[in-house]
């Protein structure tokens, strides 16, 4: 699953690193490193992290919006 963190918004509160440590890790005291393509087995943890983020900085792809399943999509060349 694809995700992106708006790091302008992120305050380094580390809730995400606590809830989904395989995807989000703190690097030093405040810098956040994350895997933009989390393994699907992490789906539940990532969702929990996104919900818990106090500044709502984590954007997770909506399954329905994934390009492969885009409704009525014409071609992807």
């Amino acid at each position, binding site marked *: *699953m*694809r*995700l*992106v963190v*708006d*790091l*302008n918004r*992120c*305050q*380094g509160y580390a809730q995400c690193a606590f809830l989904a440590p395989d995807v989000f*890790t703190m*690097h*030093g*005291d*405040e*810098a*956040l*490193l*994350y*895997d*933009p*393509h989390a393994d699907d087995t992490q789906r539940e943890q990532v969702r929990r992290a996104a919900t818990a983020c106090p500044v709502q900085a984590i*954007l*997770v*792809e*909506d399954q*329905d*919006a*994934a*390009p492969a399943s*885009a*409704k*009525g*999509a*014409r*071609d*992807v*060349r």
Partner: protein
Amino acid sequence: MSADGYLEALRRKGRIVIVGASLAGLRAAETLREQGFTGSLTLIGDERYQPYDRPPLSKQVLLGRAAAEHTALPRHSALNAQWRLGVAATGLDMSAKRVRLADGEEVEYDRLLITTGVRARPWPHPQEVELDGVFTLRTRDDTAQLYRRLAAGPRRVLVIGAGFTGSEIASACRERDLPVTVAERGAAPLVGALGSVVGEVAATLHRDHGVDLRCGVMVTGLEGDPAGRLRCAHLSDGSTVDTDVAVICLGATRNTEWLAGSGLGAGPRGIACDAGCRAFDVRGIVTDDVFVAGDVARSPHPLFGYQFLSLEHWGNAVAQAEIAAHNMISASADRRPHLWVPAFWSSQFGVNIKSVGVPPMGEQLLVAQGSLTERRFTGVYGCQGRVIAAVTFDQTKWLEFYQRLIESAAPFPPSFRTVDRRAEGLEPVAAGFPDPSLPTHGPTVTVSGYSPTDRRITFTPAHA
């Protein structure tokens, strides 16, 4: 047809073309759909990939914590768009409203959005670029190649240019325990973006992490062995650095060549647009159907004296794309200005660096909180008695407060007391930006001056 009728038809069955399929292009496309545009949407991009995110490329990807090919951006919504990927736009006919593509095809539009961004500024000696071991870093493919080379364990990595990207690469290499030399023409890393006071702090970060940092020097040449592999680099102080990898980080140049001769106000410094993202033509008249957003745009900001700002910042690409998309399908009175306060982040050597406002406009710097020597501080930049920008090293929590001060044009130096104010923060000091008439590579913000009382040309060197 009435203006209202035209707009209604445009929103329902118009043709919108977006050239440049990256962060800004994708965010604009999503916004168009979210705001009810149901016409045809075409995204043209010269890279072969679906839009992906660049900031991880010089950070977690080089550290092996994410894969270069797994950086695709998440989608908010189904786009129902036509994608033309792997094909560049090569020309624009504004009167016929047509974009020409490299494969000979032409695409017609009712509204055009240009989000062609920037590319890495090339090394000025083309033969030397051919050497095996010489890299730049802007794209997924660049990063994948560099990553493979780093994983193979080179003798040494030479980073040429200590802006944000160069510093982040040096940091990642040190974390991988690779010997690193950084050559920077300025007095310290990040001087163009943050000034020399903060640059000195960045320099101690490099050195404390074992980087062989050399400032005030230029790399004059790269030398290969008979097999065409990089062997060493020659520096302007007469020294040489034995190295098998060199990463050129000399800032970026704007992707506007394809617009040459189109009549649009596009050049090496970007495409000028109004605060509503409408592009100017070469006569300085604003167009009504061509819009710009992201790294390629230059737009006037009321908070900064209506100077035209070019911002190579992730957050700017997102915010400007959303405004451009909204304005493309809105009547004049409903259009919105792009009033985003510039902001960016960088992480290097384990420190989170963040900034708001436009630091290079700052004349003075006040260390309002924390301490430079502890590398945990908030620096506030002042210009003509106002707060114009702020930077934090591992003090993100204070940044929003200073953003409010910038937005309200608060006086500088701030008159109130701040938490954790130290002796070094009692008086402002000169912020120490390089003389704008001297060539530097890649200041993050190019303030190019445009107001009736203050017209300034910022010297932008063609080469490093």
